[in-house]
């Protein structure tokens, strides 16, 4: 069973990692713990639902890819969700966080992010209702791999997409001027400013990247399980654990952190009762903060 738990852990870890990238960047560049980040996953998943519903209503694009449970609509839904969630994040930034940053300190923004989380979560409840929703009602059956490990084809796609996203982000951060400016701002906002970097722009890019990652994670999560208003809320601790574990601001750190969190959660049930599983990310947070506060990939400040 250890192989099965490991496979499960890697797959759920990939989603946590994707979602944690934005959180990690926010912690580093915006310098506050954004408790509403997980709600962006929820919104991303529901934006994807809107797109798929509309596409289906208009006749759809037909067919599915090989063993996967979906076809083109889902791919386009990923793009649509990323754009829509980015706009939502920019709106929140403009209406709330940017204004707060001007008048108060970053810890006040943590308070605000809790309020925003409550608003976003209940808005989903109001608009879409509490009932869980599935992108597709067809049940996908697991494929048996060597070693008696069962995985869903969709989850393999998910893992592949995560790798693609990470490579794309890597290229963005090392090749584009905006990406380099973003890393510079992460290290020292003041030095970036006097070098001529428009930090406000960088901050907007952080929201866009964070929201897009969250949206993709949300849609993929919705794909492998189901959509409900608490989708993101249930992931708060794993996301923070991944971001802190990897080191705030680190792309690979966030993804690796996500994998570690996913693996630990899934493997933990072999030694502790399943009902204590939600505490596992917290224990990881404590351990990493105690032994290596800057995270695995973080720079010592």
């Amino acid at each position, binding site marked *: 069973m250890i192989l099965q738990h490991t496979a499960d852990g890697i797959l759920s870890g990939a989603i946590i990692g994707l979602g944690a990238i934005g959180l990690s960047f926010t912690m580093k560049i915006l310098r506050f713990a954004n408790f509403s980040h997980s709600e962006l996953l929820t919104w991303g998943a529901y934006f994807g639902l809107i797109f798929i519903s509309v596409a289906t209503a208009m006749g759809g694009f037909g067919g599915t890819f090989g063993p996967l449970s979906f076809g083109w609509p889902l791919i386009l839904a990923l793009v649509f969700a990323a754009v829509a969630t980015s706009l939502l994040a920019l709106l929140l930034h403009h209406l709330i966080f940017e204004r707060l940053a001007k008048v108060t300190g970053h810890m006040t923004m943590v308070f605000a992010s809790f309020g925003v989380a409550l608003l976003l979560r209940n808005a989903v409840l109001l608009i879409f209702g509490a009932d869980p929703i599935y992108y597709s009602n067809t049940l996908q059956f697991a494929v048996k791999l060597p070693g008696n490990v069962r995985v869903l084809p969709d989850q393999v796609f998910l893992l592949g997409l995560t790798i693609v996203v990470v490579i794309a982000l890597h290229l963005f951060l090392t090749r584009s001027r905006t990406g380099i*400016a973003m890393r510079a701002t992460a290290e020292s906002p003041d030095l970036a*400013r*006097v070098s001529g970097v428009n930090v406000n722009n960088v901050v907007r890019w952080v929201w866009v990247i964070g929201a897009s990652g969250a949206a993709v994670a949300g849609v993929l999560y919705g794909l492998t399980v189901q959509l409900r208003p608490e989708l993101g809320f249930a992931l708060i601790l794993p996301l923070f654990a991944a971001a802190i574990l990897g080191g705030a601001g680190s792309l690979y750190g966030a993804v690796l952190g996500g994998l570690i969190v996913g693996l630990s959660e899934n493997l933990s049930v072999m030694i502790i009762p399943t009902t204590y599983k939600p505490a596992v990310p917290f224990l990881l947070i404590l351990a990493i903060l105690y032994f290596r506060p800057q995270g695995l990939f973080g*720079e010592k400040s």
Partner: protein
Amino acid sequence: MTRRLTASGIVAGYRPDLPILHGVSVHVDAGEVMTIIGPNGAGKSTLIKAIAGLVTVSAGTVEIDGEDRTGTPAHLLAGAGVAYVPQTGNVFTTLTIRENLIVGGAALAKAEALARIDEIFTQYPMLAAKRAEKARVLSGGERQILAIARALLTSPRIILLDEPTAGLSPMAAAELFDLVRGLVADGAAVLMVEQNAKAALKMSDRAYVLAEGENRIDGVASDLLENDEIGRIFLGARPEDVA
């Protein structure tokens, strides 16, 4: 002679209710190295940051090339020809040397920035050799050079240096001062804060002495070297400040 920078009656601080500067006025002309000295806590760094747009100016004006630029955001000042090299953390240690320079050219168009970077690499072969390495591997002196090179990328007319020789060996410091003199020879204006008052005065044209957030003395640098009052102002400060 062209007046590059005029700061008059600057009141500024990190918190609106606790100003550090109480109406400081300085000016720098083209081709001039101007040094600000004074005891710890005099507000020297705050003044330079206020001019660079990093500290909010609550009263007074900052004029650059005759234009009022008070309250302009730092990144726009960079595009307007003001360069600032802070005392600590003056390079991005997590970025490669080439990336540091790319950030330095953020205010320029992309092609222009890349052309300037090539020029800089020709000018400083040491940087070119290590272009793909992270800046954290550089020595103190090398970092200072990278920091200045980064600042020079936009061909600034006003260069603000916060303690450029801090932590450098005497030889490296001398090299750096040579570099600074070279900059003004090309028509830039340099405003520099220095702890090492004696050495700084020796290579400066003019100097201001600040204490407790106010102007105390100013004049031609060589005159100030002999001024007794300076010693009194520095009294109570660490002895090496007047060394």
